[in-house]
């Protein structure tokens, strides 16, 4: 019998998902240990976002198993799914901040609506989380539209960590940011993940970001994980897909898909 220590925080087996005739995930297997920072890399349209959305329950896979803390999450009913969601936070690629709410209300949203916390108490937590990502209390009353892309990413990060989740998903956390702001976000992610001991799954095609935030890297291609290993070993993977991807070569076994997954 497996002990808790050996039990992966997230275990995915045989995951398959298609859109029409396009098979995006094709029997994908992957594990993520408790407190580990796993980065999934892969080209555009290879299904990285689909993988994360399946784990979060935003998309229903056709077949396969997704276990979080050993509990099967595929096919969970709505109430059980909402309870499972309380274990996780997500930073979306485009930040996905709610335009109609102020910055602090965005950060406190999960605490107020999801957990029933009083607004005043939730505001205090939100301002503390904003401070943790380098934003002062004056930012709290602004609207998301008044912030730059980098600032919005910080707010989205503060929202993702506000409820101190056990698992955080980062979807292309540095896409669209200048190199300096990207590094700031990478530092914040490392700080959040390492200091709190959160389990993190990030998806990116930014290798600078992947090398900085990953304990382990997995390469997704053709609907499956074609290589995975410690972040420090990626340059010696000996895998032609990984070599082509990390060196950014047009020539190689990877042919870019035209349609997005």
């Amino acid at each position, binding site marked *: 019998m497996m002990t808790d220590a050996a039990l992966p925080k997230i275990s995915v087996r045989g995951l398959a998902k298609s859109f029409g005739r396009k098979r995006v995930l094709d029997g994908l297997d992957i594990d993520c240990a408790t407190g580990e920072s796993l980065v999934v890399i892969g080209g555009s349209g290879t299904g990285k976002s689909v993988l994360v959305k399946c784990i*979060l329950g*935003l998309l229903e896979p056709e077949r396969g198993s997704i276990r979080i803390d050993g509990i099967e999450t595929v096919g969970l009913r709505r109430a059980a799914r909402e309870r499972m*969601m309380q274990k996780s936070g*997500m930073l*979306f690629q*485009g930040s*996905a901040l*709610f335009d109609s709410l102020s910055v602090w209300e965005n950060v406190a949203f*999960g605490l107020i*609506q999801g957990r029933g916390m009083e607004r005043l108490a939730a505001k205090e937590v939100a301002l503390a989380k904003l401070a943790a990502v380098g934003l002062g209390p004056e930012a709290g009353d602004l609207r998301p539209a008044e912030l730059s892309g980098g600032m919005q990413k910080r707010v989205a990060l503060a929202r993702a960590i506000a409820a101190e989740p056990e698992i955080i998903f980062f979807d292309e956390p540095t896409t669209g940011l200048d190199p300096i702001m990207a590094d700031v976000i990478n530092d914040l992610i490392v700080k959040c993940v390492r200091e709190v001991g959160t389990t993190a799954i990030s998806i990116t095609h930014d290798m600078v970001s992947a090398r900085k935030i990953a304990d382990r890297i997995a390469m997704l291609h053709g609907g499956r994980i074609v290589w995975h290993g410690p972040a420090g070993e990626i340059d010696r993977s000996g895998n032609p897909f990984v070599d082509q991807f990390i060196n950014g070569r047009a020539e190689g076994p990877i042919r870019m898909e035209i349609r997005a997954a």
Partner: protein
Amino acid sequence: MLTFLAAIGAVFLAFLAATGRLVVFAGLALATAFTPPFHLRVLFSEMVNIGYYSLPVVGLTAVFTGMVLALQSHTGFSRFAAEGAVATVVVLSITRELGPVITGLMVAGRVGAAMAAEIGTMRVTDQIDALTTLSTDPLRYLVLPRLVAGLITLPILVLVADIIGVFGGYLIGVYKLGYNPEAYLNRTQQYLETIDVVSGLVKAAVFGFIVALMGCYHGYYSRGGAQGVGRATTYAVVSASVLILVFNYVITEAFFAR
């Protein structure tokens, strides 16, 4: 011939599938009303948005509708010396038909379009997925308050539109056509029955629900970026307007067919 029938069959099946999806969507959203949490702050905000902010446009439409109705009735009825019925025709037309239908159509254009655009933008920018990841059911948070707000607020709006519309008719009747004010008001009340107003308010509640449902449904399932949101907005307004006219007939039939 077979191809033609197959095409008709395909359209009919697509219509049934779309109706099924709409009914399931409405059912799932309404089912969230029976268990907490209740997002009363969002409900109140939607009621203000649908009701208070629609008052100017609904008021203007109602007053001019009442004025035109009085003028047209007068010119028509004067051909057979029935000018005395103008006040009655105005009040019955406004309360039974024009108040709810015109208010419904105006709100469909103003509020239905805005709902589809807002929820559609939330869909294409991952904000709806973000709600789910924050342990918040999007149907409970986004859709249910709008449906309830539409259901409650439109009858109030229609009541206001009825009063303003009848007042518009009074202005024309008394100040332009020279009717005696007291006689006009007496005629307005004389033949007005409770069912005339109630049927209009029932229509308003149904129209409010339809407008909110169409706005939410088309926004919720929009895809394809800005173009998809634009398409959702158009579908929301057109489908709500058509359904308002269809249900106007159905409810009229239910209340007044003998």
